């Protein structure tokens, strides 16, 4: 006996294959065609690293205007991500565990064409890349984009230098006791934070094969005022913030890190507020305003707590501007321009949230929308 469901399926199949002309005559039905959309919708993009430890991670692409999801760029497990300044090329450092949990692994640098959400190149890495929550300073590129630098941890630390055009690894630079990659604005150097409070800088040269190393004076105290590894440029300086809310401005222009200035964003504010999160600070250059995710009643161990407020701070004037309620954010990114927009990752909701920033109201934030499906995400990048 033919089962009813099978019969129905057979009928549908026959209808699809044999009876189109008849249907077209009767109902003027035009069958749809099935294809792959060639490119994403135009307009500025927001990139979110959706990190998976047991399967495929992805770089989710959202519209900067309304956070509509435009698709994703698929990667391996435990990714770090990087978006080129022009927003057209993206990178992911991927770990592929061949049997998901046990046995051999393979690590690669995926290169993507953003417009088509497609992998254009896959570069095999030495297999030492750090498997760690995503932070922007753990995958970076040289100022000219020639090299991509990959943070390694075995747990001994080093940096793999990848020649993107050649599609190959140039060398591994030992960075003992140091963590994070902060490329210079010119040339092919990068600096790294060291556990003794110094910064090490490495010049790999135009061919990427050198490793000239210099070490700074002690910049910070990792015991009493540890800095987050998140950073942004303020002018030509690298800016870091400590668990206690001290901002360190550092220059890398001479090839060795030097201190430019240090100031507190919590001094003079109500007691107990502190920065918290992952990629937790972002600077709007046009207005000279630094944004930081902040939480109240801070304690030893609260430094990754999600935000209760986002503080806007006038760097040149060294003064607080506004403290906007913003719940649950662990990473933020503010756009460039006179009237910026700030994007944040909500840890609890698994969303990316859009905030309008009002320059006429001391840079207060107003939520204007959100996009879901970000999963475990700690990096958000705003494309041009």
């Amino acid at each position, binding site marked *: 006996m033919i089962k009813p469901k099978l019969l129905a399926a057979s009928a549908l199949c026959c209808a699809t294959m044999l009876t189109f002309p008849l249907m077209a005559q009767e109902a003027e039905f035009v069958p749809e065609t099935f294809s792959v959309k060639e490119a994403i919708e135009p307009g500025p993009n927001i990139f979110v690293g959706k990190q998976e430890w047991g399967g495929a991670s992805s770089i989710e692409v959202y519209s900067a205007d309304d956070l509509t999801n435009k698709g994703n760029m698929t990667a391996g497990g435990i990714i770090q991500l990087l978006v080129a300044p022009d927003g057209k090329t993206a990178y992911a450092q991927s770990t592929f565990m061949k049997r998901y949990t046990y046995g051999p692994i393979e690590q690669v640098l995926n290169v993507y064409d953003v417009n088509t959400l497609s992998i254009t190149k896959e570069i095999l890495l030495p297999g030492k890349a750090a498997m*760690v929550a995503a932070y922007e300073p753990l995958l970076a590129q040289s100022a000219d984009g020639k090299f991509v630098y990959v943070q390694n941890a*075995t747990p001994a630390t080093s940096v793999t230098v990848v020649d993107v055009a050649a599609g190959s690894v140039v060398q*591994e630079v030992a960075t003992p006791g140091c963590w994070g990659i902060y490329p210079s604005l010119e040339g092919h150097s990068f600096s790294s934070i060291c556990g003794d409070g110094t910064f090490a800088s490495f010049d790999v040269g135009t061919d990427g094969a050198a490793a000239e190393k210099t070490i700074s004076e002690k910049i910070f105290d990792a015991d009493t005022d540890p800095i987050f590894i998140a950073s942004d440029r303020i002018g030509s300086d690298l800016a870091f913030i400590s668990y206690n809310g001290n901002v360190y401005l550092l220059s890398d222009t001479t090839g060795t890190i030097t201190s430019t200035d240090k100031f507190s964003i919590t001094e003079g504010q109500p007691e107990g507020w502190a920065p918290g999160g992952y990629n937790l600070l972002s600077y709007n250059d046009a207005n000279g305003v630094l944004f930081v995710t902040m939480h109240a009643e801070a304690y030893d*161990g609260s430094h990754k707590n999600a935000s209760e407020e986002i503080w806007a701070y006038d760097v040149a004037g060294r003064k607080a501007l506004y403290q906007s309620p913003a719940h649950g954010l662990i990473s933020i990114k503010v756009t460039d321009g006179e009237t910026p927009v700030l994007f944040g990752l909500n840890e609890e909701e698994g969303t990316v949230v859009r905030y309008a920033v009002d320059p006429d109201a001391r840079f207060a934030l107003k939520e204007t929308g959100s996009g879901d499906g970000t999963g475990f995400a700690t990096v958000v990048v705003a494309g041009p």
Partner: protein
Amino acid sequence: MAMIDTIFEWLDRGAEKSSRRIAQGTGRRSFLTKAGAAMLGGSLLPMLPFDRNFGQAFAQEGASPDGDQTSCDYWRYCALDGNLCNECGGTLNQCPPGSEASKVSWVGTCRNPNDEKDYLVSYNDCCGKATCAGSFCFTSEGERPGYRMGLYNDINWCMANDSKGYHCTVAVLVGLADA
């Protein structure tokens, strides 16, 4: 902390020598062979200078003489980022059957409210299996970024094992902080 610093200083010196030999295959294997003996791992734990009485007094799951060992508030878990092994077939200091003990770990310093002493707690991951069903706990007392690698809890501490899949985390007492 001095012990931890010494271990990682040694590790980094070893890495400096071997890591330049990129993609030769033997560099990392050789490094890990040497490093494994120095790291906080299952086979080394009996040699570490901690009060052995604690292993007997507090490692008895179910008895919980010093607190609820399935709660993220349990004192040993003050810097734990992971799923509790003792809720998925393991114990406070044993990985579940069939998993691998991590060769490396991060270390927290937690105060035992029962004796008001600070203990070094080694948070070893258990590796090579799918994520376990135990509670996920995330605390970061004394935690530092990767520039203090031995205090860092964001990273996969199965990284030095042959099987690198994260399964769960134990909290092993390895010493007194003031010792």
